[in-house]
């Protein structure tokens, strides 16, 4: 299998087979918090793709060129969370100054991303799986796309559910979880799509 094909399979795997939300249980807080309307779900999804991509690039470089040579690999958790927090902050400032229209669309979602475990999760997974630079970047991008896909599907379902007759104790989060469970049944169908 050539390297290019491997990267494509890695991408599809990250989007569908190992969907971050429905199969790896990462990023559930924004998944349930921002999935009430499709507009905001789309904004959040784009912001997550963007930050995941940048975080994967930066943390991979830091890990392999700073932490490993200095024998500080065990400190990665502290380093990564600080890198992600400052990255989000920097992106926000740059966006606010140079891309005000994009900032208006995505700005409010950025601070929420710092505490999104999907972002820290993808960077740690990249290191744990021993991915090289391009694999890490593709994996992070695929993870972001998969998150957005799950978020948009959920938002569409929840918009419909607003008018549905849900039993009172299940209204709000409980029914959202049960819906997510049914969605993940559907996503289970993708397992086996990628040869091991």
């Amino acid at each position: 299998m050539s390297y290019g094909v491997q990267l494509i399979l890695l991408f599809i795997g990250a989007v569908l087979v190992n969907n971050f939300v429905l199969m790896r249980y990462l990023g559930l807080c924004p998944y349930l918090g921002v999935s009430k309307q499709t507009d905001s779900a789309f904004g959040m999804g784009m912001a997550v793709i963007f930050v995941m991509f940048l975080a994967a690039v930066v943390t991979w470089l830091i890990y392999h060129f700073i932490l490993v040579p200095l024998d500080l690999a065990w400190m990665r958790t502290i380093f990564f969370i600080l890198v992600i927090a400052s990255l989000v902050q920097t992106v926000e400032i740059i966006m606010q100054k140079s891309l005000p229209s994009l900032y208006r669309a995505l700005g409010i979602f950025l601070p929420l991303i710092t505490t999104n475990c999907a972002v820290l999760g993808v960077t740690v997974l990249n290191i744990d799986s021993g991915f090289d630079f391009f694999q890490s970047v593709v994996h992070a991008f695929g993870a972001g796309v998969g998150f957005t896909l799950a978020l948009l599907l959920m938002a569409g379902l929840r918009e419909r559910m607003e008018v549905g007759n849900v039993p009172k104790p299940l209204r709000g989060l409980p029914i959202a979880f049960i819906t997510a469970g049914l969605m993940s049944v559907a996503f289970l169908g993708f397992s086996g799509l990628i040869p091991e």
Partner: protein
Amino acid sequence: MSLKEFTKGFFRENPVFVLALGLCPTLAVSSLVEKGLGMGLAATFVLVCSNVIISLVRKLVPKRIRIPIFIVIIATFVVIVELALKAYLPPLSEALGIFIPLIVVNCIILGRAEAYAQKNSVGRSFMDGLGMGLGFTYALFIIATIREVLGFGTFLGFSVFGSDFEPATIMILSPGAFITIGLMMGYFNWRRRRKKLKGVGAPDDILAERERLTAATKEAA
């Protein structure tokens, strides 16, 4: 120092079922009771230690940069747990995988730091951390018990139903996790409605509250 600080974590303000915090690890490690307990106790250790330290330094920390400081304190204890588990309990460390480093971004811990430890004395923060941590462990234990018994037919590895039992594999896969926690939250909602307990909002209100809290991070950081 009252007992209430300790017991509120179990029912009235249970972090998972009522406050809807810390959901990712709850779903991910609850396929086996052993994993659930390991994760719960690891998070409890981090929560108690970070609550105590944050409460100790609460008067020294400038308000505007408090969140990054809290995160560094929390991350320090997470690294301690990570290394200790790797050294002394390698199988558990392997089973929990990336969810050990992800304790850093567990909303329960930063949430308690922000909502409780930075405003209260050391003793109270200690009790709060212990209660919330064990409340989290207890929630994990319930979900993991349901999933392991139905999904494997075992409890802590011991067979429950004998060899005739056909395990419902779906319970240990992700759909089982989502549906179990959804029904448990529904049960807690139903219980609260019936008892007409006042003073705790619906989980949705609390999610909104947390979003406001995270938005405050923006100014602080």
